């Protein structure tokens, strides 16, 4: 493994550890959703996004929208690890009078938009991408979506518009961990054939293993997949990835680890390469 890959892998690990610790301390929820996106976020911030703490107001910076705003702990973690704000801020996540709320909030350095209500992110991203096109600006817009929010009609309104206007500076990444709030996506409202849907809506689509760093980087480095089309990356992931007893378990959309569960979770995450 190259040094670069090691850096990214280490960041993904720290995102998981921070999120687990934050959600444990806060007694909050959505840990599974944070664990499934760790590699995606690590690659984005280390290898893809042209943004840094010094350029958060640069009109030409790349934009990331975390449309699945409930995965805020991991989002705050990656931003703090990359120097957008002090790591200490993570300690009082969710606490009375603190800075970091349970859903991603604009005003925190590095956060482009507030999210938490599902189905809002892609439309705002499309607006930003459209402005970029009209202004002939070089930036790209990445929107990280949950699978569950692809139930929202508004997601598809934005998808249709982005393709119609040839927004190839827009990338939708779907953290397809296959579990939404009340069950597996296949049992709630099946998204399949998922890739076909995005293709039919006019997007250039690639499916990847959302935990494979090399695959994520290669894929996100090659956007737009087709000139004149927005790019969709369906990242197959595992909800609760990294902690054996949380993987693919709906319970960990809600439960926070305490006592022995917490110790086991940390031990498993620490033990990973």
């Amino acid at each position: 493994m190259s040094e670069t890959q090691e850096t990214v892998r280490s960041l993904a690990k720290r995102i998981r550890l921070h999120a687990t610790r934050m959600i444990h301390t806060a007694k909050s929820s959505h840990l599974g959703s944070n664990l499934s996106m760790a590699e995606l976020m690590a690659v984005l911030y280390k290898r893809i996004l042209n943004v840094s703490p010094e350029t958060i107001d640069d009109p030409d910076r790349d934009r990331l929208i975390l449309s699945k705003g409930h995965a805020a702990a991991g989002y705050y973690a990656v931003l703090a690890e990359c120097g957008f704000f002090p790591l200490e801020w993570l300690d009082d996540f969710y606490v009375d009078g603190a800075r970091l709320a349970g859903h991603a909030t604009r005003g925190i350095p590095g956060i482009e938009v507030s999210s938490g209500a599902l189905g809002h992110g892609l439309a705002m991203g499309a607006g930003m991408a459209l402005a970029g096109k009209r202004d002939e600006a070089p930036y790209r817009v990445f929107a990280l979506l949950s699978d569950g929010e692809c139930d929202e009609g508004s997601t598809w309104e934005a998808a249709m518009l982005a393709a119609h206007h040839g927004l190839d500076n827009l990338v939708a990444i779907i953290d397809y961990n296959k579990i939404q709030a009340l069950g597996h996506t296949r049992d709630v409202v099946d998204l399949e054939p998922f890739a076909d849907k995005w293709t039919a809506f006019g997007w250039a689509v690639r499916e990847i293993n959302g935990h494979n760093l090399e695959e994520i980087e290669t894929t996100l480095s090659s956007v737009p997949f087709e000139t004149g089309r927005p790019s969709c990356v369906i990242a197959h992931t595992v909800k609760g990835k990294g902690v054996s007893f949380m993987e693919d378990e709906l319970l960990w959309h809600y439960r926070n680890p305490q006592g022995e569960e917490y110790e086991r979770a940390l031990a498993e995450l620490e033990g990973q390469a």
Partner: protein
Amino acid sequence: MRTAFIEALTERAAEDPRVMLLVADLGFGVVTDFARRFPKQFLNVGVAEQNLAGVATGLALSGKIVFTYSIANFPILRCLEQLRNDVCYHKANVTSVSVGGGFSYGALGMTHHGTEDLAILRSLPRMKVIAPGDPLEAKAATHAASEGIGPVYLRLGRAGEPTVHSGPIDWQLGRAITVREGTDMTIISTGAMLQTACQTADLLAPQGIAARVISMHTIKPLDEVAILKAAQETGHVVTLEEHSCLGGLGGAVAEVLAEASLPNVRFRRFGIPSEFTKQVGSQEYLREVHGLTPGALAEAMVMKKIA
């Protein structure tokens, strides 16, 4: 008002390339010239109001000053959460323009009656709520919003309303305009009821009642000073709106008067009961149904005055 709006917006778009107009597939004959003249400043998102508000926010966060345009409830209620979370939270320079306030599209039926908008939009943090009283006010309001003053809701009537103001106006956001002076009572009107307010005052005059008429074109921020002054000087305040009596102009003025606890001030709201209007008919007819004509209003106000 629709014509005044698009003319004003066209002027501003020519001056400022940041000004954009987004429509949700409505505005036939209204937006065509704008679209042709400013293709880079125009977008039709299709029949997709959630997208209208979301895309507008993304554009605004990228430096644009965006006007969204559609009919009655479509650009506001269908996408209320987008207005709250996307537009208002981010202080985005987005003005949601609704054409067809009140019963402008009366005969089209309940779906097209914009009769709760002021109450609902007024409750959103950071949202400014404007309902111009005539085309001159619509023009001025459009210019003000196009400067980029954050989230705005602009409620227009339709086309062809009369110009009520006789000369140039000094229109300022949140500053009511006194259209005529009076000492016996005050009619505070919002939106396209302004002409009716003036006609009502005309009918009251021969009965010895000198009614002040105020155009409360901005519901939020509300001109509390003008309301309290009217209450103190005339002792009798009525509100007039083509809107539910709950939470709109009447509600807003009632809040101010109740907290001020002024002695000997009479107050009454004229508007629409909190019901769906099932009668079929034009704006004029539906106003008549709800007693919102000068004759009916003057009579009710006189009775109230005597009682």
